[in-house]
């Protein structure tokens, strides 16, 4: 049982114009097995929350705390956070030229697990994960995210989620740019990872359609850098109907 505890998180970015405050005191607790959806309009700070938890250097934490099972996440380097059990499925996964998917996955699995996975079982593991996500085996010989379609990038993210077995996963707009079939395949992967590892999920999305596949236990409405309303799955239905208008400018 793991718990990611976010308390009063304040985050800024430094630009030429000075500090711009993006997160203005976020409180959120995610435990193993739970699915939390964060929904909100574009520009509300949802992605900033995701990247700040993962430790992206662009964001400066100006207040609050983030702990994973009591350990101070904000003091960890990016790789330490991942090894502690956090995972971020990115909206825009980065191309790494010259590094094959198979090399990348094995390097990551070795880092996360603390030892190189045994070659024979590893090959089977990767094959299984790829088959489940309906991916061509030739995929593993391609360079990481290089020339991938939007759907391939998202499948590759979820494949990593399944192979690296984190405690808490943040999915940053994993549904964006996916057609109906790809959305279903990717969502099924998330549900599999949840069931297999009692994963806690923080699902960041603009739209409700992914919630048909990945049922949230809690829905949080995000606007202007903080959570402005919380509820159960019924809150998503309300958002579907009425949109974010009442929260914007609040």
């Amino acid at each position, binding site marked *: 049982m793991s718990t990611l505890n976010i308390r009063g998180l304040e985050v800024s970015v430094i630009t030429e114009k000075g500090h711009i405050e993006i997160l203005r005191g976020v409180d959120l607790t995610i435990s193993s097995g739970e699915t939390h959806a964060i929904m909100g309009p574009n520009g509300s700070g949802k992605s900033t929350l995701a990247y700040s938890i*993962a*430790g*992206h*250097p662009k964001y400066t934490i100006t207040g609050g705390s983030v702990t994973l099972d009591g350990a101070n996440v904000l003091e960890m*380097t*990016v*790789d330490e*956070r*991942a*090894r502690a059990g956090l*995972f*971020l499925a*990115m909206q825009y*996964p*980065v*191309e*790494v*030229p*010259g*590094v094959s998917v198979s*090399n*990348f996955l094995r*390097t*990551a699995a070795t*880092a*996360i697990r603390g030892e190189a996975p045994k070659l024979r079982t590893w090959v089977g593991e990767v094959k299984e994960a790829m088959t489940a996500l309906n991916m061509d085996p030739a995929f593993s010989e391609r*360079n*990481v995210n290089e020339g991938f379609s939007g759907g391939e990038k998202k499948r590759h993210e979820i494949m*990593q989620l399944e192979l*690296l077995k984190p405690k808490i996963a943040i999915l940053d707009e994993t549904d964006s740019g996916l057609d109906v079939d790809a959305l279903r395949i990717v969502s099924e992967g998330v549900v599999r990872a949840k069931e297999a590892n009692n994963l806690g999920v923080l699902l960041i999305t603009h739209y409700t359609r992914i919630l048909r596949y990945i049922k949230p236990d809690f829905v949080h409405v995000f606007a202007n850098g903080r959570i402005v309303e919380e509820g159960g799955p019924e809150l998503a239905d309300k958002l579907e109907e009425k949109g974010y208008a009442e929260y914007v400018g609040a």
Partner: protein
Amino acid sequence: MSVLATNYLTPTGREEAWRFTPLSRFAGLHDGTSVISSVESLIARDALPAGVTASRISRELVSSVSQSEDVIVQRVHAEAETMFHLQIAPSIELSEPIHLKRKQMQVGQAELSRVRITVGQGARAIVIVENDGEVILGEDIEIILEQNSYLKFVTLQEWSAHSVYAARHHAIIDRDATFESVTVTVGGSLVRILPTVEFKAPGSSAELLGVYFATAGQHFEHRIHVDHAVPKAKSRVNYKGALSGNEAHTVWIGDVLIRAAAEGTDTYELNRNLLLSDGARADSVPNLEIETGEIVGAGHASTTGRFDDEQLFYLMSRGVPMDEARRLVVRGFFAEIISHINDEAIQERLMVGIDGELAKVGE
């Protein structure tokens, strides 16, 4: 001591072609003050396959196939006593690379080396030149590709720390022939190579690939010149370099000339430099001169920068520690070029060397 030295225009460092080169470290190759030894260092590593011959020809018997304004090339042509000639007979198709290597030189003495490689009509071959040891070496390698032939020409500059190597690697490519080169420069004090290409007839193509990794105090200079003087020739240039350490200096010049007659030319050149520490300097100058608009394409790109933070973040967000992430990125950066060398032992040796250099970068 060379008696002919005074006939050449000794570069002063103010010339465009010499403005980046630290002539004070050139060991007298450029002004004729170096002591020329009688050692002829280039030899075949193994017994040559059928259809391939290597011989040394006296200077008086060597025909001229190309000109150069470069003083090193001029000196080599005028003063080298013999020319090493590797000949690949027409129609021969070799599956295994031909390896050339160096005999040990006399330390402190210089060599002027003239080399010619002739690939006969319709022949296909790979030549790998492994350059190591301590040298002061001026060299001209003329590579003649007859019609419809193919040559992959790999040179590895793994010279020891005090070496000076100044060379032209000049390809003359005939109709429908294909030249590929991979130029690797990782060792030496001062290395200055002119990878140059001359197209003789339509349908000829050249792909020039290169990697270099300069560390503290090393000067590695590659001055590419591709001369599109005939119609419908194709050229691609892709050089990638990394630099680390104080006064590591690399120079990449990419001159591509599309003459008025060269209609249907297709050319693209690219240079990327990765700065791994402070105090290093990469000069990168792509230079495209176009005298006809009737071409298929002509372009160039040049980038010099530090590690891509987004790449490192992506890898680290998967648990990969910073050092390992950098190693992956740099290996990936070079793998694109090194994977073209048809010899796994050499690929592995170069990658291990790169890892070693990277480990020294620290932080």
